[in-house]
């Protein structure tokens, strides 16, 4: 701890703008009749995604009692879906979420996420609403839309439907030295984050992610009949801002994806964490057809104010926390 770093990392002027923006976001949902909820950030279950490490918290019923492990949530997704299955209707949450080890100019282990779910919408119609919110906060009005396949064709001249793993690896190594080997999605992720994202200008929605990167999205087909994920992301000036799905509602498929994540965790030597089986139960009960999206509020503010470091929009960044 550096005791000379007692002051905030953001200016007070920025913090006033931050407060105004949070109020604007709440107003945006209030006039659309989307209910604000406040699900727990501390849960007995952890996210299944092998590449997101949850922070573990020690809970005791009394001081000398045995420790029970709880997990700080990396997104309110699981609990919000349990609410949706319980009949909540359209909901949003704006709260702190936590991700272990993520520190950088655009990452802070504790950050503010805005997540919302809209009944009857799909990934395409939800993109319209994300655009409306971003316009309201930043004034940006032009949004491009490209499928994941179009994006790779346009920026790297690679057709992901036909390129081999070796071709993806070679294309990556042309630009940046990489140690180690990766699977197909590993190389796609590397190309996306190292070679494409830095080239993206303005606001770009990328949709129809590979079926293997569906996470919690439904599968659908593109115009050529190739299976793709009903998942989208929004990038602004190359910064990943939002990630959305036409939500998976099939309990059996959800259970299968949890098991696949746990399997991959075992292969990678990552900790096995308790899975959110209550979500599977909720899906069995019935999740209404809906689309949902998570958006990084701190990054949205960075874009609105032209800041390059996340620390500049947080009262105290991780180094001062």
């Amino acid at each position, binding site marked *: 701890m550096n005791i000379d770093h007692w002051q905030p990392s953001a200016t007070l002027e920025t913090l006033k703008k931050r407060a105004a923006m949070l109020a604007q976001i709440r107003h945006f949902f209030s006039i659309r009749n989307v209910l604000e909820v406040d699900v727990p950030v501390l849960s007995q279950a952890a996210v299944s995604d092998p590449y997101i490490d949850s922070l573990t918290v020690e809970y005791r019923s009394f001081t000398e009692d045995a420790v029970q492990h709880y997990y700080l949530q990396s997104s309110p997704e699981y609990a919000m879906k349990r609410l949706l299955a319980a009949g909540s209707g359209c909901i949003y949450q704006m709260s702190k979420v936590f991700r272990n080890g*993520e520190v950088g100019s655009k990452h802070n282990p504790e950050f503010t996420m805005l997540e919302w779910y809209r009944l009857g919408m799909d990934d395409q119609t939800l993109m319209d609403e994300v655009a409306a919110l971003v316009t309201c906060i930043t004034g940006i009005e032009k949004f491009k839309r490209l499928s994941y396949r179009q994006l790779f064709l346009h920026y790297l001249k690679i057709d992901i439907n036909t390129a081999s793993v070796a071709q993806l690896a070679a294309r990556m190594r042309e630009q*940046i*030295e990489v140690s180690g080997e990766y699977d197909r999605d590993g190389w796609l992720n590397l190309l*996306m984050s190292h070679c494409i994202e830095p080239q993206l200008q303005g606001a770009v929605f990328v949709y129809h992610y590979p079926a293997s*990167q569906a996470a919690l999205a439904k599968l659908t087909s593109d115009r050529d009949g190739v299976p793709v994920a009903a998942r989208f992301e929004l990038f602004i000036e190359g910064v990943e801002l939002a990630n959305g799905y036409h939500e998976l509602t099939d309990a059996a498929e959800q259970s299968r994806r949890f098991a696949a994540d746990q399997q991959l965790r075992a292969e990678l030597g990552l900790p096995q964490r308790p899975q959110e089986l209550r979500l599977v139960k909720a899906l069995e009960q019935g999740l209404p057809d809906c689309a949902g999206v998570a958006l990084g509020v701190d990054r949205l503010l960075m874009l609105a104010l032209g800041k390059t470091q996340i620390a500049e929009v947080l009262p105290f960044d991780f180094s001062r926390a």
Partner: protein
Amino acid sequence: MSYSANQLKNGLKVMIDGDPCSMQQVEFVKPGKGQAFTRVKMRNLLTGRVWERTFKSNESLEGADVMERDMEYLYTDGDMFHFMVPVTFEQYAVEEKAVGDAVKWLKDNTVCIITLWNDRAIVVTPPNFVELEVAETDPGLKGDTAQGGSKPATLSTGAVVRVPLFIEQGEILKIDTRTGEYVSRAAKA
């Protein structure tokens, strides 16, 4: 001392494929879905090569025992260049390869930054500005101080720089070693 890719930061020196390298730009890359990487722009301290490499966040790297010290240039024996640490009088013999382009600006008693790796000198960085005497140049044009135009001048170290037309042989000039350009006449002592 070893570091995980997560701990890399600007200025850190690590061993890459057997060579000491300095981190020049470090960026944490983590898509919402997908693995975390540390993308680094590095400089190989032996070859000077600058390139980009990306590391998995759990990859581990060996730290390089690299330090920088101010040393005074003494002389060359035609083979090695000899430097001395002013406070302790320790002397280091430096290979021509490590001196590199700095040789153009070396005169007796010039204080340079010497990069040591396992106590072996691998890079010589001259001061940003040096003052050197003009050994040879065409006769100066009297009164021509405002007009543009320049001519080559050979300095006492053998370096050739472009100088304004009014500069005479024997004058002391201030040179920016980073660009190799003439700055001004040296202030009179």
